[in-house]
């Protein structure tokens, strides 16, 4: 494993700027997640590190060496693609052994066998080693794709939404497993996802990316509790943060144009609060119930206390409890 440094990298495809002046250092043994919507430049960043794309400007350093112009094979990186990309005519074992058998590596056969069996055991696919790779369920194919990267000990693992095609239950289990494997191996991982839960639960640091720019990087708690702007604030949190015009409440900082109120920033009382709102709907999602409110024509969604016994049409009162404030440009206003 090694430290990976992305220095002021830009990449455009025709008129489209995919990545702009992006700088990011992934320390040895660190798990960094890049979080952003489709088209934000996450996958391009990974492909730039892997050497599948060449940057227009800036440099990529791996383990202290400039690798910007080097071919992918010379960079010692392992890539897990979103669409498993397994060889359909090979068995699970042969798929996992494939990279180790590359002529430039010359790994002895006995060592290959030992390594593949070790990783297969870690991923709970040791009984599937003789199956054709395509005769597996989606979850098992994804494990093989991850296993194919883990048999190697590269400088960095690059993972492009590796869990996105799994069902919710399996995704939850794989999150825990991947995090445990990463901790056990001390692996360096740069992980791309649009799923905030994956980023929050696995990453040591999250980089929030939007339109090719890195907006903020920090621990999950820093990003959640201390976002630099309204865009970052909206990326994390379920239900999403409510962005409300400052005029609705009194006594705010003068620069504040927008209030960012998460569930924990809103207290709901029957009467005597700052502003009145009407309950429009209660959405029972199981582990949490979303309370949909109408606040003078604006929708507000917060978590509903199961004991509160509210119903559609009820009028409640809202109090703010240390919310976030943003200025006209969306930047954070310090309190």
């Amino acid at each position, binding site marked *: 494993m090694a430290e990976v440094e992305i220095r002021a990298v830009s990449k455009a495809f025709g008129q489209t700027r995919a990545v702009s002046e992006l700088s990011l250092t992934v320390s040895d043994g660190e798990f960094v997640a890049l979080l952003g*919507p*489709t088209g934000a430049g996450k996958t391009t960043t990974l492909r730039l590190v892997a050497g599948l794309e060449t940057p227009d400007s800036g440099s990529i350093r791996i383990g202290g060496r400039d690798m910007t112009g080097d071919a992918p094979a010379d960079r010692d990186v392992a890539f897990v693609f979103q669409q498993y990309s397994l060889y359909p005519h090979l068995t699970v074992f042969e798929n996992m052994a494939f990279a180790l058998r590359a002529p430039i590596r010359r790994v002895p056969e006995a060592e290959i066998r030992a390594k593949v069996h070790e990783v297969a055991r870690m991923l709970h696919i040791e009984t599937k080693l003789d199956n054709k790779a395509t005769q597996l369920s989606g979850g098992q194919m994804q494990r093989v794709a991850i296993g194919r990267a883990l048999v190697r000990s590269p400088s960095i693992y690059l993972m492009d939404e590796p869990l996105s095609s799994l069902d919710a239950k399996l995704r939850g289990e794989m999150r825990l497993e991947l995090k445990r494997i990463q901790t056990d191996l001390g692996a360096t991982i740069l992980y791309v996802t*649009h799923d905030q839960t994956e980023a929050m639960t696995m990453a040591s640091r999250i980089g929030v990316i939007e339109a090719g720019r890195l907006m903020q990087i920090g621990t*999950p708690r820093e990003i959640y509790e201390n976002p630099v702007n309204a865009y970052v604030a909206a990326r994390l949190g379920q239900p999403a943060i409510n962005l409300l015009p400052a005029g609705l409440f009194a006594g705010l900082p003068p620069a504040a144009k927008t209030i960012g109120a998460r*569930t*924990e920033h809103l207290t709901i009382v029957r009467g005597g609060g700052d502003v009145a709102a009407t309950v429009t709907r209660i959405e029972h999602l199981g*582990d*949490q119930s979303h309370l949909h409110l109408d606040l003078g024509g604006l929708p507000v969604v917060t978590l509903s206390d199961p004991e509160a016994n509210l119903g559609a049409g009820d009028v409640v009162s809202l109090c703010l409890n240390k919310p976030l404030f943003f200025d006209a440009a969306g930047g954070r206003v310090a309190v």
Partner: protein
Amino acid sequence: MDEPLGALDTEMREAMIRELRALHDRLGATTVYVTHDQLEAMAMADRIAVMNHGVVEQVASPRDIYDRPASLFVADFIGSPPMNFLPFRDSLQAGARTVRLGERDVAIPAVREALPESDLVLGVRPEHVRFTDQGMVRGEVYGSEYLGTTQIVTVTTRYGALKARSPASISFRTGENIGLDFRPDTLSIFDKQSGRAIRTALYEGGAHG
């Protein structure tokens, strides 16, 4: 509709869930929707049919499916993280208000059927686990997953790993010894052999499909 939102990313899926439901409310069109995604089912459906190996295990409103699961399979499948299951052995009398779990009596909703001594399972949702020093079950903190407003705390106990949802403001040390308590009126009891939920006062509150 056969998993029409399966390939979308999270944000787009959430927006489409609201649009599809609004469209349905406007058109009133009869819709059968197939999905493996519990959030889609819970957020959109009037009723959910939970299927397992070609058998419908329960048909009910999202709320009943979640609060009053008819079988172990339904209880395990719906909910993220899923319901905690604590195996125990006991006999049940109609009207009983407690079950014997290890050396402690655990309060449960009143039992409505009698059962000879058999292998049973106590079902507890993560959000109904509370941390108290006098808890029913003791264990060691294995780890916690930060989710912003809440966190999921995994605790290793003699009944296996139990998950609890707690406010993110409380901090736990890995390895810390803590006590767990369960909210009595929400607990389910299952027959381990058949997976069937034992009839209790909890199951009288809902309309069954």
